[in-house]
């Protein structure tokens, strides 16, 4: 754990500039097993201190790979010099950021380090189960991971905080062969917030997920190609989460709005069916703790939910303190940094479409010829709202019933056009949180949503 050694440095903050000083420790543990062999067995600890100083519209930043008083002094000085350099050569003459009020949030939980053997033994048990219960696979791969971000933040005019966010997962990957010998693959992440020993107390609790993944890949190996073209589909909750994050969420990050995203022209306009409401949640959603809760961001802003789309109308952007000032909005705690050496950027936290009232079985029964798309391997989106997601698991829907499984395909479209076609929304939200969002820096994020019935272009073969 980080000791709170830097508080004395506050006296060195410039009276005329907004200043942040952050000490941080990132821990990462990883074991990977391929066909029973351990191919990766690593532990990483990265710590240090950084400072950021705001002056008349631009920032100076500096970081050092050392968590000490002396390092804090060095980075404060270098950040101030960089802020002066920017003001001198590229000054924008903007006013000071509105102060947020000085508060503090102490550390509310402690975490301990889990021995590498714990990860290895757990994977061995899962691997043995796969060998015994999953005949016919041509390859199997498993990983166990834990990462955590611990931060001590001091600010000149906002919240001081000591926070920690741990998460841990097991990744299950299976490869089988189609009857004509082509390999097909499926992937599943299990886990969430918390250290590995707390999330994974017994391998037997993961066996049902292995069984479910195996059942799906056995369906997929007998799968068919989707027919290309515009289709009525049901996006499962994982797909809705991907859409919420990639295709909509990024376009309403205020820095991308300033960079020309399509949402810059859409505030207050109808961008989706009135059945669609989308929020970037801070720490609590639908009465429960979010997958990756954020209580204060790295500018010292107390985190709160940011409504993005309400009943189909685009209502807001996610902001930093500077972009909030530009747009005349309130910052909601979206400025987050990955490592000690990273400056805060506008990032999502837990972005999800709100549930509706429809039952999934009724949604499936309502489709005569379409698809139920369950899971995505990856996704990319444009600032125009154009998106493309790989679909790794799905089923045909024929005459209101699930049919054959699908081989890998893609869906694509323009997010706001597609959201206008949503006419049924299920009553159950599914979350995922195992991945990293990439935007200059990686960042753990949660994403989720209910099943949506909508029109989308499917890529076919």
């Amino acid at each position: 754990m980080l000791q709170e050694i830097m508080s004395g440095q506050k006296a060195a903050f410039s009276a005329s500039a907004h200043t942040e000083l952050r000490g941080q420790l990132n821990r990462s543990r990883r074991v990977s097993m391929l066909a029973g062999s351990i191919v990766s067995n690593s532990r990483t600890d990265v710590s240090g201190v950084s400072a950021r100083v705001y002056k008349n519209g631009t920032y100076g930043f500096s970081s050092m790979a050392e968590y000490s008083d002396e390092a804090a002094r060095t980075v404060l000085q270098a950040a101030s010099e960089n802020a002066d350099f920017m003001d001198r050569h590229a000054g924008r003459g903007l006013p000071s950021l509105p102060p947020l009020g000085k508060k503090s949030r102490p550390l509310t939980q402690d975490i301990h380090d889990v021995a590498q053997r714990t990860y290895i033994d757990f994977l061995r048990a899962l691997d043995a189960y796969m060998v015994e219960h999953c005949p016919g696979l041509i390859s199997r791969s498993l990983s166990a991971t834990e990462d955590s971000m611990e931060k001590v933040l001091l600010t000149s005019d906002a919240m001081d905080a000591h926070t920690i966010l741990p998460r841990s997962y097991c990744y299950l990957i299976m490869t089988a062969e189609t009857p004509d010998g082509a390999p097909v693959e499926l992937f599943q992440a299990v886990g969430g917030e918390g250290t590995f020993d707390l999330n994974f107390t017994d391998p037997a609790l993961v066996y049902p997920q292995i069984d479910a993944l195996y059942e799906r890949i056995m369906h997929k190996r007998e799968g068919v190609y989707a027919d290309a073209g515009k289709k009525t589909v049901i996006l499962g909750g994982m797909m809705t989460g991907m859409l919420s994050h990639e295709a909509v969420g990024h376009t309403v990050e205020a820095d991308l709005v300033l960079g020309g995203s399509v949402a810059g022209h859409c505030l207050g306009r109808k961008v989706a069916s009135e059945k669609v409401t989308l929020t970037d949640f801070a720490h609590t959603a639908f009465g429960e703790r979010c997958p990756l809760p954020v209580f204060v961001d790295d500018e010292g802003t107390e985190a709160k939910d940011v409504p993005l789309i309400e009943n189909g109308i685009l209502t807001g952007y996610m902001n930093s303190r500077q972009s909030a000032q530009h747009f005349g909005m309130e910052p909601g705690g979206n400025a987050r940094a990955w490592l000690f050496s990273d400056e805060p950027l506008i990032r999502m936290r837990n972005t999800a479409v709100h549930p509706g009232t429809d039952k999934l079985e009724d949604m499936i029964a309502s489709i005569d010829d379409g698809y139920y798309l369950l899971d995505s391997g990856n996704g990319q989106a444009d600032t125009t709202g154009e998106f493309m997601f790989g679909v790794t698991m799905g089923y045909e829907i024929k005459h209101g019933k699930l049919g054959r499984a699908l081989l890998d395909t893609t869906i694509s479209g323009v997010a706001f056009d597609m959201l206008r076609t949503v006419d049924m929304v299920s009553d159950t939200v599914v979350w995922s949180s195992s991945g990293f969002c990439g935007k200059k820096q990686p960042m753990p994020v949660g994403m989720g949503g209910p099943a949506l019935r909508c029109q989308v272009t499917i890529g076919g073969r």
Partner: protein
Amino acid sequence: MMKKLERLAGIILSEAKSLGASFAQCTVSEDETKEFNVDGGKFSLMRTLFDRGVSITVLKDQRKGSVQLNRFDEDAVKAAVKDCIAASESAEPDPAWAFSDKACILEFTVGDPVCDTDALFFRTRELLENIAQRHPKILVEQMITSHSAGLSVYMNTNGVVYQTHSGAYSFSVMYSAHEGEKGSSFYSSDVTLACLDRPVIDCALMDRELSAVEQQIETIPLGDKFVGTVLLAPQALMEIVLFTILGNFVSDGSLIEGTSIWKDRLNTQVADPRLTLSVSPYKAHAVIGEDYTHEGFLAQDYDIIRDGKLVRFALSQYGANKTGFERAGSTGWNLQIPAGTTPFEEMIRKIDNGILVMRFSGGQPAPSGEFSGVAKNSFRIKNGKITGALSETMISGCVPDMLMHLREISQDVLEDGSVSLPYIAFDGVTVSGQ
């Protein structure tokens, strides 16, 4: 400073030996980065980063453990070695782990280790001004320009020591074109430079790419689906073809797993005889190429495909020991495809029915090499002419089939400081609209 890094590396290795390691290697590095950021077309941030890193790998009874940290104090480093030994003790023994055992002491100097901060700022501002003057419809979403300088020492218990001084400037520009409420897809141009002796807009293919994106505000729908010619710009070539080859066909993971469809194709024809694909860390296009692999072997240029024939897999020594094939000369990605003889414009003139793709947004290619995704920043080509930028167009195909249906390789080449790649046209790719 180099002496300090060497001393620390020595402490790590002797600590590992004293704790029973049969082999240990470590890399100790210290870096300084200067960086300017531009957001929404305006300067936003200047950063100075003082970084350091320690990476340790040990073998004990052929059981491997690895740790990384960024502290140099002796207590932390010794604790990390202990941690690394504990990690190895809990791993399975694997006889395939192997590292360089050719004792030597070598020193490498790569790029320019000294940053000229004023020149970096000048070239950054000049690039913004040049874009505004030459390409007024372009909005720079984000520009990151930097110089990173580093010292590092690699040392292993077999007597291998490498000292590296490195430094390079990098420019990364993400942008889109706008007119009123209409906008193009975003695109990113990147280049790594050893020195700042000319305007950055004239490096790599940056000016050409900016011009192309400016022409993508107004788009046309594709119309009917067809099977035709796809001309891949270097970035799309990498995203569709090269990532599939390296990720799915020739590297450790797919060959150890046995899922590579090329596992039995060594020394057979896998591509048109005009295609050669090399990894070339020592060629001039690689500003910072790999000097040694993560297993301590000196890097060498090598061919994966020569004249269409698969001649070498991109295997580490571990992968080679697991599969029985030969280790590759380098584990880096300094890819090179030799240029063809046809100018880009002439390639366009020779295409009757096809598209030009600058960027690809697609799912992970299947292990079979089948892919499907959106042709971003793309243009329609009809009867030898570009007839307009395309909206929402999908392409799908199979990389192994494409390699056998290569139509032409351009004389024009992207050299961005990391790779050297031409435009390549392939026949038989399915193109469809929404």
